[in-house]
């Protein structure tokens, strides 16, 4: 097989590289939206296949990472009908989110304190509207305000307002 020049990545190769780089971040986000890991993986397959077609057609390569989040989110929201099972998996997920084990060597009082704090934060996050939640989670995935605005299709100011609102609520719950 002839060696391929590093500059000319095939769409397949590029998709696989982006998959390796982005898959965990995207899947975490989908889980936060309330999808099961299984549904999340299916949506990611579809998302990356769309990316493959997108690249093959020679469409815009600007901010492909943001593009991936946007497509995954749209597919997830389309699929996500409010059903019992979804709410079930959401609750299960939420509980997982904040019940990770604390640092070793905690006293029982510390542990209790940590759990109380977590359940307070959890209640806050649960009560947030979907867009605010998305802002928070996308921010937690390390995305910039401008990228978040692009993914959610809202203005930069709205993202900033949403995040400062959420942070204010979290802070109040944490005090």
């Amino acid at each position: 097989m002839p060696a391929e020049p590093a500059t000319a990545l095939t769409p397949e190769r590029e998709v696989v590289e982006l998959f390796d780089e982005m898959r965990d971040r995207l899947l975490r986000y989908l889980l936060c939206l309330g999808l099961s890991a299984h549904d999340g993986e299916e949506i990611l397959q579809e998302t990356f296949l769309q990316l493959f077609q997108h690249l093959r057609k020679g469409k815009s390569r600007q901010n492909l990472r943001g593009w991936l989040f946007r497509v995954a989110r749209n597919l997830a929201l389309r699929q996500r009908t409010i059903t019992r099972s979804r709410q079930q998996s959401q609750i299960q997920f939420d509980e997982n989110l904040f019940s990770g084990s604390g640092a070793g060597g905690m006293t029982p009082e510390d542990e209790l304190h940590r759990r109380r704090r977590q359940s307070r934060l959890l209640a806050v996050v649960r009560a947030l509207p979907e867009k605010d939640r998305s802002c928070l989670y996308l921010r937690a995935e390390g995305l910039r305000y401008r990228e978040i605005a692009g993914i959610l299709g809202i203005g930069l100011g709205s993202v900033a307002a949403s995040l400062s609102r959420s942070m204010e609520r979290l802070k109040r719950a944490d005090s």
Partner: protein
Amino acid sequence: MGHVSDRDLVVYADGELAPTVAARVRAHVDKCRLCASRLDEVRGMAAGFGKEYREAVSPLLPNPGAARLSLQRQMASLEEQARPGVWPRLAASFAPARIRVGVVSLTVALLVVFGLYSISDRGGSYSTAEAGSEPVTRLTPGATVQVARAELCRNKSHASAVPLVLQQQVFARYGVVDPKPDAYEVDYLITPELGGATDIRNLWPEPYFNTAWNARVKDQLEDRLHQMVCSGELDLSTAQRDLAKDWIRAYRKYFRTEQPLSQPADSEKPDGDDDQEGRIAQTRAPADAVRGEDSVENAKRYRPNVQRLEDATVALPLLSPRT
């Protein structure tokens, strides 16, 4: 100026404010203790939440290996559908509307073509092999995806159904018109469990029952090779090459037998199962797809295989990977 607005503060924290505005914010934050602490809070809160969130969610994520493989396979399949056949004239006859795609897939690496292979080349002593047991090398040279051995061994079942569209293309390429549902399995020459691609160059219509060397027998070989590759007895590329070159010869080599080992439909299996036999017995029963008068025919065809069982039980312990 007054205190910095929340909006400006978070955007500033991101380094996304316009330079002139950013300079003003910086100047203010330097002097104003309140805004300086708000800025710290904005930065700290996002970072703290992010870390906690990632640590909590990450353990819930399944291993990405299987998903990556499936993605690669689907891309290869899409690529194949858009590409004119390696033999354009043939391809044009069943895919007139295909669009030419100039870039040949690089993740789907065509194996070296091992020279023309025809069944008669194998000589008279192997006359049990009938037409159709092995693919036409020109049409099905074999194709693989790039995948690490560890990955193939970590995620056992990768065999996915060949898309119907692709199956029809394979039949067309082999000139099989209106195939009976149970007559053929459109089979991978190199199984996906050993890195084979879902690619028309790696697929052919393999008869289930009209030959001793049928799809069920090949399944045994694939299981065996997978086991050997994963236990380190055999390297992946050798397994792929042997499968692509001549799987019947490979079967004889790895099972040390001239004839296919007994099929599970034959109940005359002797006692004393070891792991090896147990595994073979678990391969799909050929009887499950046999109906009506055909079954008599098939029973006759399978009869000779039983005779080989004694040989097999002698040979198998030598091959046992329990080391």
